[in-house]
């Protein structure tokens, strides 16, 4: 790791951070470092300046909102999320997903916003956040804050629809609807310290036996975490039907890589979706 010449900016307030971001657009933001430090070690990046966000303690919190939803600060770690009663209540599958990120050491340091910003198609929490209709709040010193639905954040492989002067500040989750049924599944390389081969978040809202909202999102099966619109549309208006899993091929485009194969990812995605829907169809 050749970081001997790197400059580090360590803001203490959000306002300072945004100012520094605006004046140093090339600076690489670093929060818990669990992705950035690996990229540095591998020589995948070698920036001259880092924007160290770890000191923004005001963003390290999870807050319950008046509408019953929760807002997760950009510096909140997986550990903080797992420990939050609000998140347990509003988004149990986010807790479940957070518990599968690396292991304790990573969960103690890694942040949800970091998972979003790193923009890996294999990011463990991203399908869950898509299924939960999460909004990402970004801010800049020039234009203030704005909210982007996560489903519109990614424009391509590791590409974010954010300006160079913006930083992620919050992740907002809507309140849990009493009729929501959710499911999380991660097929990784092993049971801990594992990168996803396929990862899935599902939320279906079933009222009087009829699906009136469906979110099916997968990771590691396309250049970005994807919402599976064909499957979602087919789920709407009837009972939860596991057979719609056959439509998944129209929503995903997995590839061969060092960790798995296109065929395995494709087949596994179909099978775990089918099993999940079978399970959700029985849930009352």
């Amino acid at each position: 790791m050749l970081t001997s010449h790197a400059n580090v900016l360590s803001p203490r307030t959000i306002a300072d951070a945004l100012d520094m971001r605006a004046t140093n657009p090339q600076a690489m933001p670093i929060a818990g470092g669990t992705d950035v430090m690996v990229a540095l070690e591998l020589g995948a990046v070698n920036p001259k300046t880092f924007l160290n966000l770890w000191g923004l303690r005001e963003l390290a919190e999870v807050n319950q909102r008046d509408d019953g939803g929760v807002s997760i600060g950009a510096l909140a770690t997986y550990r903080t999320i797992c420990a939050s009663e609000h998140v347990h209540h509003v988004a149990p599958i986010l807790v479940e997903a957070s518990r599968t990120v690396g292991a304790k050491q990573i969960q103690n340091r890694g942040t949800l916003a970091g998972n979003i910003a790193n923009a890996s198609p294999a990011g463990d929490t991203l399908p869950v956040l898509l299924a939960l209709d999460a909004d990402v709040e970004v801010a800049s010193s020039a234009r203030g804050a704005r909210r982007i639905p996560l489903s519109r954040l990614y424009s391509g492989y590791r590409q974010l629809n954010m300006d160079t002067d913006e930083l992620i500040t919050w992740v907002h989750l809507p309140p849990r609807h009493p009729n929501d049924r959710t499911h999380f599944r991660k097929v990784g390389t092993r049971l801990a310290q594992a990168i996803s081969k396929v990862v899935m978040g599902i939320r279906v809202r079933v009222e009087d036996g009829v699906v009136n909202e469906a979110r099916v999102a997968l990771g590691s099966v396309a250049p970005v975490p994807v919402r599976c619109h064909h499957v979602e549309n087919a789920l709407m208006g009837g009972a939860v039907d596991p057979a719609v899993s056959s439509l998944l091929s129209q929503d995903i485009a997995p590839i061969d890589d060092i960790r798995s194969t296109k065929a395995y990812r494709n087949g596994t995605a179909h099978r775990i979706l089918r099993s999940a829907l079978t399970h959700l169809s029985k849930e009352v």
Partner: protein
Amino acid sequence: MSDQNIRFELNGEPQSVTVTPMARLLDVLREDLRATGSKEGCGEGECGACTVLVDGLSVNSCLVPVAQVEGAQITTVEGLERDDRLHPVQDAFLEHGGAQCGICTPGFLVAAAELLAADDQPTPETVRDALAGNLCRCTGYQKIVDSVVKTVMEGWPC
């Protein structure tokens, strides 16, 4: 930019180092402070051999830039002892065969100390969950899990 002065507490002792702020905490501990108990097995947060506690929480010190520990309290394996007494989990590792080649041992002990501070009577399953970020190639983990489960925390100041 030149080196920065960074201050933190290591095993209860104040330390001040002047280093490049993106230096890995692991390197600062091992090379600048000559606290070589924390080991490097992979450099990418997979093996856990470099595990230390930062303000009581276990982290991979190979993934923490030293700039982020300004003012923090850091505990390494060298700091688990109290008043010349081994931490009970160190004793348990000795008695139950938790260490073989020893290279992963410091990381396991630090991670186990974090667990035991919160739960002094963990089940085997809890222990496995808490230590899943530490790789060992010698023991098959059974004797490590046994060691932590059998650790007697009674009377140990937390």
